[in-house]
């Protein structure tokens, strides 16, 4: 078995205990909710989108430290960015978690901080949940 203490480094624990951008967003123009079938945990992502930019980005939900930290770090990273950039980041995060690519060198980059989850296949979905939900929220036809 892999040692999960690496995964539960300070950033994950800290973000999960003090999540950024968590809360309602009544004026949201885009929103989606996804369930993690492993546990039934739910995450909702809401955004105010203007001219293809994620002007405001919020999340709600309850879940494990990895899901909450991932959502928190995602909103911090992507608020103010373009939808295009957000979708590319989501692809990248998913590829990194799936072990298909290594991701950012900067160890403090959110995607790098979530890299450790690849050793725990049952938990990968926890790390990707918020990003998937964001993709759904901003994808045209969903």
């Amino acid at each position, binding site marked *: *078995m*892999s*040692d*999960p*203490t690496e*995964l*539960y480094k300070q950033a994950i*624990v800290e973000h999960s*205990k003090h999540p950024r951008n968590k809360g309602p967003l009544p004026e949201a123009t885009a929103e989606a909710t996804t369930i993690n079938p*492993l*546990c*039934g*945990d739910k995450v909702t992502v809401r955004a105010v989108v203007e001219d293809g930019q994620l002007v405001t980005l919020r999340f709600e939900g*309850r*879940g*494990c*430290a*990895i899901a*909450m930290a991932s959502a928190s770090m995602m909103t911090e990273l992507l608020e103010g960015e373009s939808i295009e950039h957000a979708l590319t980041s989501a692809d990248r995060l998913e590829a990194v978690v799936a072990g298909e690519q290594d991701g950012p060198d900067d160890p403090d980059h959110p995607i790098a901080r979530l890299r450790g989850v690849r050793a*725990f296949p049952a*938990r990968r979905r*926890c790390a990707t949940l918020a990003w998937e939900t964001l993709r759904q929220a901003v994808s045209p036809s969903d």
Partner: protein
Amino acid sequence: MALDVHALRAEFPSLAREELAYLDNASTTHKPRAVLDAVRDAYEHRCANVHRGVHTLSQAATEAYEGARDRVQRFIGAERREEVILTSGTTAALNLVAQSYGRMRLSPGDRVLVSEMEHHSNLVPWQLVAQATGARVDKLPVTDEGELDMDALDRALESGPAIVAVTHVSNSLGTINDVAEVARRAHAANAVVVVDGAQAVAHRPVDVQALGCDFYAFSAHKMYGPTGVGVLYGRMDLLEAMPPWQGGGDMILSVSFDGTTFNALPYKFEAGTPNIAGVIGLGAAVDWLDRVGLEAAATHEAALARAAEEALSTLPGLRIVGTARDKAPVVSFVLDDIHPHDVGTLLDGRGVAVRTGHHCTQPVMDRFDIAATTRVSFAVYNTAHEVERLVDGVKHVQETFA
């Protein structure tokens, strides 16, 4: 007679790696060598299809297969061997009852009373058949301790449910229900009682006649047997009145395009080639449990569960979910501000395997307003040392999040 857990442990090849504390036995137990050998032997010395063959191997396979049915009959105290239907698991057994008995019995407006602590396997099949027949599913509530609310049962029985579905032992709370009393009251109200025994049979002697239930379902893989095998016990007169569920080989007497007549019990409900080697393995598991002794096993497991509950209860912010008077060796708990999945992953890193999540009992989670628990469940081969490792592990988790 006390149980020699170390001798017993040596019978499990999969437990040889001492660094693993497997405390997820309510999900599936490990298998003793006697069971693995019986399965392998079935393939090596009795490899043939059952029932339809006149050749020697097929007779040998049939004898071993039917011999396992006899063992199961005795194991659960069924009156007749025809009352023992071999299925692919508890889930299939409960779907069989819902689809065959339920569809026959239920009409629009009829009620099925399902306890709030059921595993999804004893709830979703009733929702599906209710949808198909126009019946409705009512909830039999659970108390704060995680027991069946027996007063609510009496009230619910006044509305005349056709079927009462209740688990013998809750897999997420550990509660042992007084199924005999539920059956007594339900029968007085003319309801049929379907009992999910998945979590009971490995932990205490079960006698379906003493319980007085009409149907009783369980899985081999949770009682030291192979995967892919389960049992549905049903009362003879009910089984006889029921239409078949699946069609196919072995369940017929004669088939033509003009019409088909069905075989006698238990074959009417055993369509197709069964899990022959698996059933033979179930027979071996019954023999093995007989040898170990369920009373001795229960005593040993209860001591471990008590030790775990006591030690865990002293940890700050830890709350045990499920505090029934009569409990199986299952301890579910939550920690303030730490999600069970994180507990599970961190414990796993220290070689302690527990289950985390809703345990396929979401209504129980809703009842206690939680999303998930960390569940520790013991088997006869667990040790006091493993309890210590569990408790140390949980402390480590709390430190990680401190």
